[in-house]
């Protein structure tokens, strides 16, 4: 059994609790153990870096140091948390001076970070550690016929870490294929959802959400799959506001990839937090109805 330290991040406590629930359920079913970090703190999203770089590194380093104590690699389900932790770890490893400053502060909480933690995004655990083949073998209720738009968003793959493909990655598609659904190819899968601009620059962000939804709908997506709570909220919760703002009529369900995997693994909806969303996933194809345990409609 593979084991990871798990940093849920603030959003997963309430706003994205369904992501947390489905992450725990699916990983358990696939033989991966996630141990929540003891007394973690907020990663700071992007805002720490606006105010004070050193503070930002220190707060991320606290979580990394807690993870290091467990001797496990740490997994973050939120893209922003992941990016912050990944690059904090990378910078601290490279920059001794920075590490010294940060560790001086960490002493106050009896912590020390020596740079020996690998940071992974939750979707990397599915794509690399579990792998699409293994996932496929565990699927009991394949989501046949459902057209899913994989939405990568920004900070899972950008900025570039090594030489991976940052423009047309395929791992999300492979996971969707593994659960029997059809991944759709749409041009905006790598574009930004607006992130925190939804607060500071509303019109800009709503336009970005609109473009994304439009691109998915144009390519007949039945549902958009995300791997980040921020993206999920922007694409889903703000859908109504997009409709009001632009006179559109979007009603696209936006689900966490773990929820979709959970369905295919036969985990009951309730355990996956399904029911908390604004736009319910329309059970159109018959296969889904069976998968969800819904009564078949007779035509």
């Amino acid at each position: 059994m593979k084991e990871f330290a798990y940093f849920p991040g603030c959003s997963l406590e309430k706003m994205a609790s369904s992501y947390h629930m489905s992450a725990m359920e699916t990983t358990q079913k696939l033989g991966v153990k996630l141990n929540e970090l003891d007394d973690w703190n907020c990663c700071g999203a992007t805002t720490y870096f606006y105010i004070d770089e050193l503070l930002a590194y220190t707060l991320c380093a606290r979580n990394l140091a807690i993870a290091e104590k467990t001797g496990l690699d740490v997994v973050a389900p939120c893209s922003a948390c992941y990016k912050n932790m990944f690059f904090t770890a990378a910078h601290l490893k490279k920059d001794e001076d920075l590490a010294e400053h940060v560790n001086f502060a960490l002493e106050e909480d009896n912590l020390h970070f020596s740079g020996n933690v690998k940071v992974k995004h939750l979707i990397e655990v599915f794509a690399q550690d579990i792998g699409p083949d293994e996932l496929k073998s565990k699927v009991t209720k394949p989501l046949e016929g459902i057209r899913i738009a994989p939405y990568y968003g920004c900070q899972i793959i950008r900025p570039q870490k090594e030489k991976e493909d940052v423009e047309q990655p395929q791992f999300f598609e492979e996971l969707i294929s593994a659960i029997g659904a059809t991944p759709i190819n749409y041009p905006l899968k790598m574009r930004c959802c607006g992130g925190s601009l939804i607060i500071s620059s509303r019109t800009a962000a709503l336009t970005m959400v609109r473009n994304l939804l439009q691109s998915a709908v144009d390519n007949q997506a039945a549902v958009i799959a995300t791997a980040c709570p921020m993206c999920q909220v922007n694409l889903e919760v703000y859908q109504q506001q997009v409709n009001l703002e632009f006179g559109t009529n979007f009603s696209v369900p936006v689900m966490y990839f773990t929820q979709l995997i959970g369905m295919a693994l036969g985990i009951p909806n309730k355990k996956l937090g399904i029911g908390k969303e604004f736009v319910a996933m329309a059970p159109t194809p018959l296969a889904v109805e069976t998968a969800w345990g819904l009564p078949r409609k007779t035509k």
Partner: protein
Amino acid sequence: MDKKDEKEKIGVYVCHCGTNIAGVINVEEVSTWAAENLKDQGVVISREYKFMCSSLGQELIQKDIKELGLTRVVVAACSPHLHEKTFRNACKGAGLNPYLCELVSIREQDSWVHTDKVAATEKAKAIISGGVSRVVYHEALEPLHVPIHPATLVVGGGIAGIQAALEIADAGFPVYLVEREPSIGGHMAQFDKTFPTLDCSACILTPKMVDAGNHPNITLLTYSEVEKVDGYVGSFVATIRKRARSLREADCTGCGICWEKCPKKVVDDVFEAGMGNRKAIYVPFPQAVPKYPVIDRVNCTYYIKGTCKACEKFCPTNCIDFAQQDEILTVEVGNVILATGWDLFDTRRITQYGYGRLPNVFTSLEFERMSNSAGPTGGNVVLRDGKTEPKVVGIVHCVGSRDKNYNEYCSSICCMQSLKFAHLVKEKTGAEVYNFYIDIRTPAKGYEEFYHRLLEEGTHFIRGKVAEISDATRLPSEEGKLVIQVEDTLTGNQLRVPVDMAILSAGLEPRHDSKALAKLFGISCSADGWLIERHPKLDPIATMTDGIYIAGCVQGPKDIPASVAQGAAAAARVMGKIQQKEIALEPVRATIHEEQCSGCRICNNLCPFNAILFHEDRMVSEVNPALCQGCGTCVAGCPAGAITGTGFSNEQILSQINGLLLLNVPKKQAVAA
């Protein structure tokens, strides 16, 4: 270090170089100091003079050599890269072996880079002391003389190679022209028009190809590759694999019945850039030289399934030979010209430009084939469906060039190529054409005028590197089109330009195997894969290995006129060498003292030029002086100290270090320094 028994008579000459040296260094003081303090080393005379390199300065040295019987000379002046030859010749003129003269630099490395006059003067003393200590251990040397074989090997049958081969052959010397593909012609044979004059490429190239094919002095070896090169300037021996064409050339008339009858169609990725098909037995294009086809054994039905033989059945001269074997030839040549050309940047690497994903994105080579009237679309500019003419075309510059994510260098031909494309598209279809560029570079004769012509033709020029090309349409006007997303940096506007066709003006890259080529011929190759010339300005076609020259794009991206000029220039250099009949080589070489050699063979692997031979019978290694380039790595690596490097011996260097540290100077003065 034991001193030599007989004391040398050394003359020291310190140059003022006007005020270049004397302005910072107290030349008189240095000169007097040397005369007094380096006496023990053998200094018998020390002089200073305004300009040592002038004829008067040289005569001063020559006079001392004759009158005082100097056996060694140290000149303290400028860099040896500037005047070493001058002073060596001066010594030679006075009857002293030129290699007994040492030039030490007190200008570039002292007076020009320091401001503290005292410190600079002290440093000059140390430098001269180093030179004096070193020169004691110099030996009289004679340059090596090697005869030159009159034949030349030209590798690569593109325009640069053809030009080089023709020049040499016309001068009456034999040439072996080796080409990997079944026909010579190279990339130029694929083009339609050439910029800026819009000459038809085939019209100007074909006569040259025919000349090369028929020339009595040229041995054409197509479908062949060089596998091994031994020897050195004057007498290289190249091993060439002549791949089996699967037919007897002597009997073949090139009638073309075989490829007409061949039932197997293959996508032609090489000549047609994937835009068209050929047969399994084929000539790459109608004007191919030589005219004989080859059987592509990977795709031929007979080689796959064992049946078919349609070509053999229909061949009127019965020349097909399925059992033919590769031939291995060895040829002896005096010089080599490498002209292996370039590969097109793989535009798939820039995924945001959509090549391979979005059908109506084309590469530059694809467009060349498309606009060529002998090409797969008969010269019609059409979309991937093969029939629709585009109404709007976007041409993207700098694809894969000027970008640290791919290649940092400018590919130099893409601007002009893009302008040519813009003209051809407009001429053939009347479409609106957009050029997306970062800078327009037109630095050759007639190029800027061509750009002006394009401006007058009404081509749109947008200054901005294209961010992405996608099918993400938003507005009705974008429906069914490709959208080019770019900032017009001149106005700061964000543009979404809908086009029917996008052409990626891809950059030039070194051949994928250029590093292997460099290794094969023992020359150096830059980190990005272009072969390195001896000097970037003054010797762009020679390499650091004597007798090996480079021409055309193998040295770096360049256009047709420049490739032709380099081909001709390389030929001229080779002919000059051949005319000399023999050449003199700098005697900076390593030699192994057999009695000290333990036969450990460490040096064998250290040598980059394979100049060290191991004699199994005597269990000792030996340096081939004609192959040795004198780098000295083996000298430093020999655990037994059995190797001496002429001109840079351990004694010379160690003694120079002592000198530089003023260990050879009486203690009192050394402390003052």
